């Protein structure tokens, strides 16, 4: 187990990259603490799999270093880094039994059979596959195959990090949550550093203590699920996390305040001095209320999603979503929208530009 440090990391798939647009990963500096549960979240093509393959050693970065406990492992191949990786599609050795599959990484490293047996039985117990040990792995269901893939990663007790590359893609929906909670439980038991790559926010937010959100080869925010939800550092995070995502509304700055359609919108805190560029107001639908006063809007659509109503209102030609727990207005109604001040922020060129609200004292 180890702390993993990425230093000035860059990677391009081109032999001769010119500008930043040629890089799949544009300058990363990340520390992954020993024993942490991390998620790497981002849309397809944002570079998260590239990053994973660089950490595992399947890819050599164009620039920068990877340190495991301050030891440079950048030039080392995967088998010398002592890492484990679980892939999108379960990788199992068809001709072997489940037992031999789990024993494979240990036997390749020359462990004696007694140690192998002890470890395999322990891991099988944890994964609840003990009764399948003598079966041929080829005949297993996809979720059990994926369990075996995970088991092969966990069976070595000295792994530095276990990485998961969208491991639940081929799993039936009703088994997904089961495997996910199994993973969480495993993390608590084996205490290995785990990095979980996904484009599914639910998977990321339920698994991880710390979520790294990536977009277009860059890290836009690292934080706990709560931080990402409550105070997105970038409009991308606001939009990507949440259902529906954060409202991002074009606005203008004058007299130290933000104005939307000519109306002043109260903000969580002061706008940072010198803020210019493309100005937007960000507020999550959860913090938009409908009342008698506020910004005038017309209800465009109401969707009852079960627990609450999602109201889509139009302010001029700008769409604003609100999540209402009580009775919802009807389509075509004129309403007034109120943004909760402590949750309303200004973003400049996508990045947050207001000071945080003073901590609210809960009653």
């Amino acid at each position, binding site marked *: 187990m180890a702390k993993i440090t990425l230093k000035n990391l860059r990677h391009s798939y081109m032999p001769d990259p010119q500008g930043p647009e040629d890089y799949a990963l544009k300058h990363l500096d990340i520390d992954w603490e020993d024993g942490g549960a991390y998620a790497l979240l981002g849309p397809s093509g944002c570079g998260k799999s590239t990053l994973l393959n660089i950490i595992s050693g399947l890819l050599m970065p164009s620039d920068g270093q990877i340190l495991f406990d301050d030891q440079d492992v950048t030039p080392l*191949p995967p088998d010398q880094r002592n890492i484990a990786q679980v*892939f999108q599609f379960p990788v199992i050795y068809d001709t072997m039994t489940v037992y031999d599959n789990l024993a494979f990484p240990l036997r390749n490293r020359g462990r004696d059979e007694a140690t192998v047996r002890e470890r395999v039985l322990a891991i099988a117990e944890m994964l609840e596959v003990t009764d399948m040990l003598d079966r041929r792995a080829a005949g297993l269901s996809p979720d059990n195959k994926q369990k075996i893939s995970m088991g092969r990663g966990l069976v070595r007790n000295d792994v530095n990090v276990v990485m998961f590359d969208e491991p639940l893609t081929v799993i039936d929906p009703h088994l997904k949550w089961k495997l996910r909670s199994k993973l969480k439980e495993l993390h608590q038991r084996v205490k290995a550093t785990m990095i979980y790559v996904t484009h599914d926010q639910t998977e990321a937010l339920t698994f991880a203590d710390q979520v790294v959100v990536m977009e277009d080869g860059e890290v836009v925010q690292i934080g706990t699920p709560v931080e990402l939800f409550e105070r997105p550092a970038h409009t991308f995070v606001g939009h990507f996390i949440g259902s529906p995502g954060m409202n991002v509304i074009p606005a203008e700055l004058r007299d130290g305040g933000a104005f939307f359609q000519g109306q002043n919108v109260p903000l969580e805190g002061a706008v940072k001095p010198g803020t210019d560029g493309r100005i937007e107001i960000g507020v999550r639908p959860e913090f938009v209320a409908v009342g008698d006063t506020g910004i005038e809007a017309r209800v465009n659509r109401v969707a009852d999603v079960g627990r609450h109503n999602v109201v889509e209102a139009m302010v001029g030609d700008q769409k604003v979503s609100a999540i209402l727990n009580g009775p919802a207005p009807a389509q075509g109604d004129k309403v007034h929208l109120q943004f909760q001040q402590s949750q309303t922020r200004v973003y400049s060129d996508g990045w947050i530009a207001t000071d945080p609200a003073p901590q609210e004292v809960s009653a």
Partner: protein
Amino acid sequence: MKTENQKAWFFVLPVLILVAFNALIPMMTVVNYSVQETFGNNLFFWEGLTWFEQILRSERFHAALGRQFLFTFLILIIEVPLGIAIALSMPRKGFWVPVCLVLMALPMLIPWNVVGAMWNIFALPDIGLLGYFINHVLGISYDMTQNPFAAWVTIITMDVWHWTSLVVLLAYAGLVSIPDAYYQAAKIDGASNWSVFRYIQLPKMKNVLTIAILLRFMDSFNIYTEPFVLTGGGPGNSTTLLSIDLVKIALGQFDLGPAAAMSLIYFAITLLVSWVFYTVMTKDDLN
């Protein structure tokens, strides 16, 4: 009440007619010949199983069958490992892939009798490039028209040259269908190259290899044209394979009855071996 519609039978009729004319009727003619004796003039005499008994007890048949099995065994034991080795060393992506594939396919595009003629000329000791080279440059006595061993070496080499490509192409198709994740997982699991071959590549190639071996078995067991053109079954009877012997009996001696009985036995052996092999190779997939 569900009424059963029998119209579907009409749709199978064309196939039935086609199969009847190209397989069933010729086959039944052979069965007909195999139990009768004829001296021409369309006169037939019932013989029962006499021909079958005669063939099965004939030393000539045993010898030809032995040569046939030896030939098939030798080409399989060379072509299958060689084919796999070539497929493994072929590039998986890039410019050279189509080049390799076309080069591999070339020998298979040449008509069988042309292959026989080519190798005949190629291997002749005085005028053939290969024959001349072996005799006069290497100084090794090599004459497939005189020496049975040289004749065998030549027909085996010819078959390997002609048909290894089939194994290569099928094995290659199996190899490229293996997702990268398998190789990456094996690397992370610390597997050696041999383990990667033994536990990933070979199992993933198993189905195509089964087909490759089956096709190569059937083709080589029934081979006629190439050795006939190359050696004509000689020197002596040393390369007279089963099919060459069959044609000698049927058209050379015009013994239609024994030839028909031999054809049926020949067919039964091919069918039996193929069936046993296929059943054994696929029995694991059933559960």
